[in-house]
């Protein structure tokens, strides 16, 4: 075997070091979490777009970058570097997002998009996000029924792009399974926000937040535990705030130590939960490359249970952990947790996704799994959610959840407590039940409803056409026609997207155009007479003939693309 092969094998053998909060992608060679040396990153988009897609994927991608960029607790700044022609993915000094990446990579079967990350010594030096131009799942810019929302996917991939790995919370943007048919995951949960902020802290983030580092081992003898996550709930509202994975015990010779950092000051209840589905350690391969892992029961932590089992399954009986600003509390709790039996919740309403419910509304829930004891208890953390008509069999629980109109919005945990093998234990779906404020939901469902009715809504992203922070009126057409949403501009956009970009020759024309128009645009912008003349010529010579052609050739093509 070659030296490089041996190096890789050694790299794969070496496990991770201490796992910091929320999970970061690991450089298995250095056993360090991989991150960028700076949160200031310039990204570029490539020109080509999926031929069959209706809508503007570039605006969707830009909106996803803008969502992360708006995070004030993280010192990250995304600069829009414009669009380039080179679709190839790989190390070329450019952080790229492309919708046409077949130039040089072969997507594995089932892949819709992937993020390639180059790092040296734990530092990310470049990353690219590549959407499969022939995806196995239909995509849209609206989260239309039966489609995956491009903006939601981009938001998740940008997390990887910056070095975040997955979250075990169903509600998180960085949860390994994305939604189909809605846009709920266009927003960042607290867990996502904290993850990015811990990795790239804004000034004062560490001073204004705190944390706790609980320890876990399994059984009476304290067999090391690993591959389970610790979850922090708001003590009074039961909202899921953040989670962190326990690390690799065998490598380090210490207990599983998840670091729950970046928590806003306040009181929390903490519990440990096995990664036993829907998420398992397969979803954290850079953290747990091919290693076995532990399956503790779900238990709330108790500092009083020193090297012992707290025995606490009900959050109402769990002690509060007070997090103070600027303080990471260590050595506060070291519990021994029993290995779980077959008790496990595996699906919610036939899926592995969270359920979203409006304040003041109710919904039916069906949980499937194993070893539910009929005398057990199902609950949703926090106040304001009541369960009724609950029926329990060993493999299925059905109930109706009613959310009070004043219930705090945010993700909750669904918890079943029952007795198995003479041990009172519980199983959790962390972040599996999300209470939505009507205003928040109205935005997303409106879009979904429009899409579902057959029409695609125009992108409603904050970073609109030609957007990004570096947008300028550099294009002749923009100067002459002014309004980017005018019919004339729409016609030109369509011409560019549907006629120029699909061919190499057209691509060259566009590239040449962009390379030479700025001086001309500035000249035109300085004279009202020139603008009027230019507008007349443009409309007569280009727009009107194009409108005639387009109306007969492709009447349904979307016109709201990005110039």
């Amino acid at each position, binding site marked *: 075997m070659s030296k490089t092969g041996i190096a890789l094998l050694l790299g794969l053998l070496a496990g991770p070091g201490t796992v910091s909060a929320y999970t970061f992608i690991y450089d298995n060679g250095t056993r360090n979490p991989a991150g960028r040396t700076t949160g200031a990153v310039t990204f570029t988009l490539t020109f080509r777009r999926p031929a069959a897609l209706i809508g503007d994927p570039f605006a969707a991608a830009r909106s996803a970058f803008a969502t992360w960029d708006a995070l004030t607790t993280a010192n990250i700044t995304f600069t829009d570097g414009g669009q380039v022609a080179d679709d190839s993915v790989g190390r070329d000094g450019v952080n790229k997002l492309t919708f046409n990446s077949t130039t040089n990579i072969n997507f*594995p*079967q089932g892949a819709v998009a992937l993020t390639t990350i180059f790092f040296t010594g734990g530092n990310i030096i470049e990353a690219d996000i590549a959407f499969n131009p022939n995806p196995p799942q239909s995509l849209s810019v609206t989260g239309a029924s039966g489609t995956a929302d491009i903006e939601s996917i981009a938001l998740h991939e940008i997390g990887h792009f910056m070095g975040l790995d997955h979250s075990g919370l169903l509600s998180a943007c960085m949860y390994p399974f994305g939604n189909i048919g809605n846009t709920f995951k266009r927003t960042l949960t607290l867990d996502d926000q904290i993850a990015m902020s811990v990795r790239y802290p804004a000034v004062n983030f560490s001073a204004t937040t705190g944390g706790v580092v609980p320890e876990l081992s399994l059984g009476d003898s304290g067999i090391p535990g690993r591959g389970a996550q610790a979850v922090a709930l708001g003590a009074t509202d039961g909202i899921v705030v953040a989670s962190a994975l326990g690390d690799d015990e065998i490598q380090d010779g210490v207990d599983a130590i998840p670091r729950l950092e970046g928590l806003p000051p306040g009181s929390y209840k903490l519990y440990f939960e096995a990664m036993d589905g829907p998420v398992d350690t397969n979803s954290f391969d850079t953290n747990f490359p091919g290693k076995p892992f532990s399956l503790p029961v779900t238990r709330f932590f108790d500092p009083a249970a020193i090297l012992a089992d707290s025995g606490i399954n009900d959050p109402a009986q769990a002690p509060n952990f007070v997090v103070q600003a600027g303080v990471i509390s260590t050595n506060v709790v070291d519990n021994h947790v029993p290995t779980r039996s077959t008790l496990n919740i595996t699906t919610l309403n036939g899926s592995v996704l969270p359920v979203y419910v409006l304040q003041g509304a109710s919904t039916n829930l069906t949980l499937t799994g194993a070893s539910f004891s009929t005398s057990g208890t199902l609950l949703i953390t926090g106040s304001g959610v009541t369960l009724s008509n609950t029926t329990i069999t060993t493999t299925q629980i059905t109930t109706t959840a009613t959310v009070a109109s004043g219930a705090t919005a945010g993700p909750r945990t669904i918890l079943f407590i029952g007795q198995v093998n003479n041990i009172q234990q519980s199983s959790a779906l962390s972040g599996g039940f999300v209470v939505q404020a009507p205003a928040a939901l109205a935005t997303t469902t409106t879009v979904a409803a429009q899409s579902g009715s057959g029409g695609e809504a125009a992108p409603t992203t904050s970073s609109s056409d030609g957007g990004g922070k570096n947008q300028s009126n550099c294009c002749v057409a923009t100067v002459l026609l002014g309004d980017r949403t005018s019919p004339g501009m729409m016609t030109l956009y369509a011409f560019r997207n549907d006629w120029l970009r699909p061919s190499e020759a057209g691509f060259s024309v566009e590239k040449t155009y962009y390379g030479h128009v700025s001086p001309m645009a500035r000249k035109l912008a300085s004279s009202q007479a020139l603008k009027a003349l230019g507008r007349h010529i443009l409309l007569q010579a280009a727009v009107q003939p194009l409108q005639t052609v387009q109306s007969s050739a492709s009447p349904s093509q979307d016109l709201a693309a990005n110039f």
Partner: protein
Amino acid sequence: MRIFCALSLALLGVVTPPLAVASSLIYYSLEKLAKDSEVILVGRCTGCQASWNEGRTLITTEITFQVSRYVKGFLGPQVTIRQLGGRVGNDAMSVSGMPEFQPSGEVVLFLGRDQSGGYQVVGMTQGRYQVLSDPDTGEKLVRAPEIAEEELVHTGKTRSASESAAVPGGHLTLDGFCARIQKYLEQEKP
């Protein structure tokens, strides 16, 4: 208000299939993996060889497996797959969601062809199942919680009957796991 609630329930209660976004993937249940894969094998990783491409823009890794059993298809006693990512010297390229392999680690692999005609793991990490050894008995186990639950849910077996096949914690014996795959494949036959 009633209409509003009904609309909300309609919008929110719809069961939608998930998208796995390890990178962004479609979600594979074991049944879908079995049916969509061209080759299913049990093998042991015997070597990994990472290299740059010609332009030094991408790192890919060739991973070779010594095959002990085929459950579906046949590619010979040794199988080599190539996937994105790997480490060459100080440089590493990672693709989130791409499976990593331990040398000598035994796995069940679900393989499919990519657009180049080569084989890759279907659904990235979703198509790789670790084979573990029971610390007490030495019996080979595959962690597959959904199978244990499926046995309970779909066959109506009692818990004790299911647990005779499934080790607590959601593991199956390797033989039991392969038998389950065969069962899915037989359902496919006309």
